């Protein structure tokens, strides 16, 4: 907490809480470094950006509203298939495809939010898990639409702005994924600092108290679940567009579990947690699978156990604790 806040008026104080920290600016500048430092890793970079976007979407419901989901890949997959099908049957312009994918994912999110908003904890985990599995099998059996286990064929994405092709080097892909991530992040950041963001934190902090201050928690949860589904859909759409492939993996349980791991590693409820977690997870996967491809989850397992045991609020939570302690000295 900034020391200057003590003398600030309540309004100024809340303003201070939402202002940009120099570390945040440094973080976003650092995301540009791969263009110069690791030009051969830009494909990985775009995958990280997509994973980060997906983790951000989960953070909105889990980190802020305390809504646990083990089936969030449903919306990622819906976004991916929507973007792929849109390019196949309508046209290949990426931005419109992205918006359509987001809208469809959000719509499905809205429909399922009526179930989701009624439950908490273990019940909710099981319901989201069930919905995710259901959708995975539905996509598997809808061969005529999704291509089933062969994946979706015939995706054709036009060059970005009519100029930049999504090539094998991944330069366009990384720029696109990073740009989308940044814009969505700005929106999420704005949302978190809004009255609605405060209400979400209220739900996370005390579900019982909310109705006693006149809050319609279910309405809030329906809303954030819809938004989160839309963001997950955007993440799915970006992966479909930048790789020109969509497979059932996009809807898989593993993807739902992975994104949860990323968020927990980085630290839920602080917007950057998912981003940092996604980067660590994806880089670890890239490096460890180089050592022994079939065993790389072993290392993720160790990392996860270590983080949860020693840094219960994730890596970012641990870092901020250390910084606070140093400042306090």
């Amino acid at each position, binding site marked *: 907490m900034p020391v200057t806040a*003590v003398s600030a008026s309540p*309004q100024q104080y809340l303003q201070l809480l939402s202002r940009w920290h120099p570390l945040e600016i440094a973080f976003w500048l650092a995301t540009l470094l791969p263009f110069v430092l690791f030009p051969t890793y830009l494909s990985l970079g775009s995958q990280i950006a997509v994973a980060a976007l997906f983790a951000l979407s989960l953070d909105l419901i889990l980190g802020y509203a305390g809504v646990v989901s083990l089936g969030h890949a449903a919306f990622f997959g819906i976004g991916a298939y929507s973007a792929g099908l849109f390019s196949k049957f309508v046209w290949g312009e990426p931005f419109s495809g992205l918006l359509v994918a987001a809208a469809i994912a959000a719509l499905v999110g809205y429909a399922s939010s009526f179930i989701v908003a009624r439950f908490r904890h273990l019940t909710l985990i099981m319901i989201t898990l069930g919905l995710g599995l259901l959708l995975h099998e539905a996509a598997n059996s809808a061969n005529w639409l999704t291509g089933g286990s062969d994946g979706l064929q015939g995706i054709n994405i036009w060059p970005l702005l009519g100029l930049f092709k999504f090539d094998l080097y991944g330069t366009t892909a990384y720029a696109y994924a990073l740009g989308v991530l940044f814009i969505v992040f700005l929106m999420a950041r704005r949302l978190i600092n809004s009255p609605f963001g405060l209400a979400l934190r209220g739900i996370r902090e005390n579900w019982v108290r909310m109705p*006693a201050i006149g809050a319609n928690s279910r309405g809030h949860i329906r809303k954030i679940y819809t938004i989160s589904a839309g963001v997950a859909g955007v993440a799915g759409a970006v992966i479909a567009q930048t790789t020109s492939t969509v497979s059932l993996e996009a809807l898989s349980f593993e993807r739902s579990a992975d994104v949860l791991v990323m968020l927990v590693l980085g630290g839920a409820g602080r917007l950057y947690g998912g981003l940092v977690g996604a980067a660590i997870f994806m880089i670890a996967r890239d490096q460890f699978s180089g050592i022994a491809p079939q065993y790389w989850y072993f290392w993720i397992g160790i990392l996860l156990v270590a983080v949860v045991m020693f840094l219960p609020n994730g890596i970012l939570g641990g870092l901020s604790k250390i910084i606070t302690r140093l400042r306090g000295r």
Partner: protein
Amino acid sequence: MSATALSTRGLSMSFGSLVVARDIELSLPVGARYALIGPNGAGKTTLINLMTGVLTPKTGKIFLGNDDITALEPQSRVRRGLARTFQINTLFAGLNPLEAVTLAVAERRSIAAKFWQKIATHKEVIEEAYEILVKLKLGDCCYQPTRELPYGRQRLLEIALALATKPKVLLLDEPAAGVPREESGDIFEVVASLSNELTLLFIEHDMHVVFRFATHIIVLVGGAIFTQGSPADIAADPGVREVYLGNRKHA
């Protein structure tokens, strides 16, 4: 008599074979200061839970003013002016008092669903929240996370959150529960200083406090109203002494 702020008719409720509310008929006039007393397990908190909609009565009706609110959800009752506090702190541990009360004010003003404007731009909401905090002597610690506040301050925040909903009727469930006696006076000073238009019902075990602040006392025993009346009536009632006061070591 003046107009009625809150009333119940034939309110009954049971958990299995245990009757926790038996045909409860209450009527709180506007501006009243009612105390609800009774031995442990008499159903005092249950009655508050019934009136606020946390529990659904088996039979009976609840009226806020002239409106039947029996079927309304808890949050809708709050929006109509029926607020409560909790016997066990039910606060937003990770928010500071300013954020928590700002949230409650934002909910009341129906701006809490807005996700596109920064909270800091809602000056009137923040100022209203701060005013409430200052009134409850929480102004100097309103930037501190709630979980770090001393217990007595947390009890005051319980009341601040309820006040932020601008209630017509406020139900206080042992507002000074767990607070040392020398500090519990502070909490009741705050309660006593609340507007005369606000109708109050409070549960309290300390008879000194009850007789000092209540204008009317309801004695609840075994889920039913045993008797009710002015503090003088209740003090003189031998039946009350027997079932309630007589059982207490400190009475």
